[in-house]
């Protein structure tokens, strides 16, 4: 682990996280389309997750081996869940709306 990260870095990240949170809450008042709203919220969510894991959890300063192990495992799981379950959820809704 990198042991000389300045305290200032942590508090700068804290400010960025708070600003992103405010933007996410403020999105509600903008008249964005559903798709655009989800895109903006998901992007902000992923930026926040990256800042927390990368700097607060020091993953950025760990070896590339552990970083790839953790990040790839998480991304593959997320992709598996999203691309398998979400289309199924939509299909289940269609089946309920238009039963054969």
């Amino acid at each position, binding site marked *: 682990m990198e042991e000389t990260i300045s305290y200032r870095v942590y508090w700068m990240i804290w400010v960025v996280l708070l600003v992103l949170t405010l933007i996410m809450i403020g999105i509600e008042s903008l008249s964005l389309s559903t798709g655009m709203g989800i895109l903006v*919220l*998901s992007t902000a*969510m992923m930026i926040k997750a990256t800042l927390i894991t990368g700097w*607060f959890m020091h993953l950025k300063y760990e070896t590339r081996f552990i970083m790839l192990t953790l990040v790839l495992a998480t991304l593959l799981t997320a992709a598996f869940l999203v691309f398998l379950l979400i289309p199924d959820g939509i299909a289940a809704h269609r089946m309920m709306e238009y039963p054969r």
Partner: protein
Amino acid sequence: MSQAYMTSSTISWEGGVSPFGMSWQKLMMWVFLVTDALLFAGFLASYLFIRLASGTWPDQGDVFNMPLIGLMTFILITSSATMATAVGAAHRGDLKTAIRFVSYTALGGVLFLGLQATEWTQLIHEGARLSSNPWGPSAFSSFFFMITGFHGTHVLIGVGILITTALRARAGKATSEGVELVGLYWHFVDLIWVFIFTTFYLI
């Protein structure tokens, strides 16, 4: 074990902290966090599935007290920053600062739990139950209590570990790596909240 195997094994790993470049305690904490992340990934994925399958879903803005949720988020993010500061201080050997910031983090956790109890009380008074609610599909309140309840339990356990760490550090028994391991757990709790906050309260 054959000599040839032992030699090969020694060359490829050499024991110690390789190949991950960290102690086994820290590695096991990461493994635990990944498995715990899978638990929450399962919760959130099943929530998204049911929500899509249901078709109708309550507007979160009508159900939740968003300023309260915003405050909870602010407190958790701030506690994560104080925890990072505590870990940084522990690695610098500044035990006094580390104890102070671990205590601030525990305080943040207690505040978060207090606000969550307030949120639950409000919703229960309005008729939310595990199996039913006045706003639409029964799964809405089921997922709400299950997901936020599991997360809140993690926060509660984290507060217990933080208080123990602060007391052990005061007694001179905590190591800098011990503080770092607690920090990993606490940041994970914050990380999970980022996903819950976005997928359950906002989207």
